[in-house]
């Protein structure tokens, strides 16, 4: 029973694990860059969930299919393309904020910044 869950649904276990790691990074780490790394892992784990949920084993892309074939639902991929753009822009905003913070306070450690401000 447990083996079934682990082997048949391992993609979900991986996504939950990654999500937890990312969440810890965002909340637990004090360094701003590490927080941003955690944020990226957190977001990408959700992309992994979408992509793996849409996958059909042995499926092909639904382009120019001559005969009936098993194909993978393309919509989640398109959604995730949008979400990746959002994630990259968020990361860019975050990194530029980190640069500004480093210029202003000379450190990226959250505790020291709180002391300085």
């Amino acid at each position, binding site marked *: 029973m447990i083996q079934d869950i682990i082997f048949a649904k391992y993609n979900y276990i991986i996504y939950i694990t990654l999500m937890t790691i990312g969440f810890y990074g965002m909340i637990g780490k004090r360094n701003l860059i590490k927080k941003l790394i955690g944020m990226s892992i957190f977001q990408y784990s959700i992309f992994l969930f979408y992509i793996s949920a849409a996958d059909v084993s042995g499926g092909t892309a639904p382009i120019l299919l001559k005969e009936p074939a098993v194909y993978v639902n393309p919509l989640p991929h398109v959604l995730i393309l949008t979400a990746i753009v959002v994630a990259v822009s968020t990361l860019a905003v975050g990194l530029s904020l980190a640069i500004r*913070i480093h210029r202003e306070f000379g450190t990226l450690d959250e505790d020291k910044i709180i002391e300085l401000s």
Partner: protein
Amino acid sequence: MIEHFPVLIIAVGLLGAFFTPIIGLIRKELCSPWASLITLLQFLISIFLLYQVLAAGNISYWLGGWQPPWGIEYAIDILNAFVLVLVAGVCFSVSIYAKKSLGFEVPGKELPLYTLYILLSTGMLGIVVTGDIFNLYVFLEIGSLAAYALIAVGDRQSLMASFNYMIMGTISASFILLGIGYLYVMTGTLNMADLSERLPELYGRPVILVALALLVVGLSIKTALFPLHTWLPDAYTHAPSAVSAMLAGTFTKVGIYALIRVMFTVISPEYVIETVPVMNILSWVAAAGIVAGSVLAIAQYDIKRMLAYSSVSQIGYIILGVSMANKLAMTGGILHILSHSLMKGGAFLAVGVLQNSFGSRDLIALRGAGRKVPLVGVSFGVFVLGLAGVPLTAGFLSKLLIVTGSVQGGVYGVFLAVALIANSVLSLAYYVPAMNRIVFAEGAHPARRVPWTMQGPIVALAVATVLFGVFPELPLQVVGAASDALAGFLGGG
């Protein structure tokens, strides 16, 4: 042309944001009128849409002509149109104020701000106008990214405030994305109307509960519902005053709108009220937020921080009204979206004027400052009294409706209503001293001239606050119809 208005309100904003830097290259001074022009266009379109919805019923616009649920649908009913007019109106009035205010507060950095400003307004209007739940996520992120950057141009501490908001906001958006993913995997559709048809047969499945929990928690972070409000006080305090007013007046309200949409349109009220007591939980959380926000606000001497904590409290009122799930309280909640938007937006603008003219946000240092800029001082008094819920201001009727609606909710509703009234008295403990210090106390300040572009929007919002307080029939016609549509399946009333 007219039938394309639902998408034009977005297209105008996106094109406007794109052309702002180009216009800035030609002449820097043109950027600010350009931003005002774009938001004015959005405001006019939204008024027209409201008129059309009231006259001819709901609008369903098919993007690119593709039929929903395959294509993206922009669905507008009375609630949408009402929030559209409110958001676009506040954005327009703040954009007039922003010209001089940004020039004072962040000299030399104004140019890119107007692009972000239009993007923020467009993102919020997009959340409201769309009928597609993934579209909602995308617009939420457009608005949020613009908001992070806008907050970060404030004073020195604004950088950390913006960073923390970004971390919280990303957690919230990711939760929303995950919730949408669960709903999509289970139903195979992203259209809100289509989702609401397909979901009822799946209500027994735990995955719908998880999706609902993710969406509610995610949107609660965006609306800054206590105890997920931690990003709000810092962000509002350190952002430029025009940005604080914009965020306080509109962005959290749009989050509340999305919460209403998800709970009442996508997922049916029966599920959130009876099967799972989401509404019940939300009403207790909101009541806790109302009290906590007030208690935290009492101790503040920084006016912006006080107003920020009072926002936490006022958001609690709106969520409580909505989550009592009867018609009266619902009407009060939606009406309070309007009144809080006007009053809190206006209060932040007034504080911005005081800060620019007298160089401080401290309640003690600003003693008597309102007398030197009489129009702003009087308006600030009106806003503060309205926030406390004094009769003849817009805040009175909405709070009264929430309280009477809560009483209908049985024994625990009465308890909540008592807590609300007690809290209204408690909130006088910080609103009245703030007004006394600024408007009535004597103080030695140099006389200042405040440009009319800064005074105009404040006075307009104050007049609207009093107008809607004295003649509540005006907004009630619209709000009543909106809550009728929502409460149609609630029963009771």
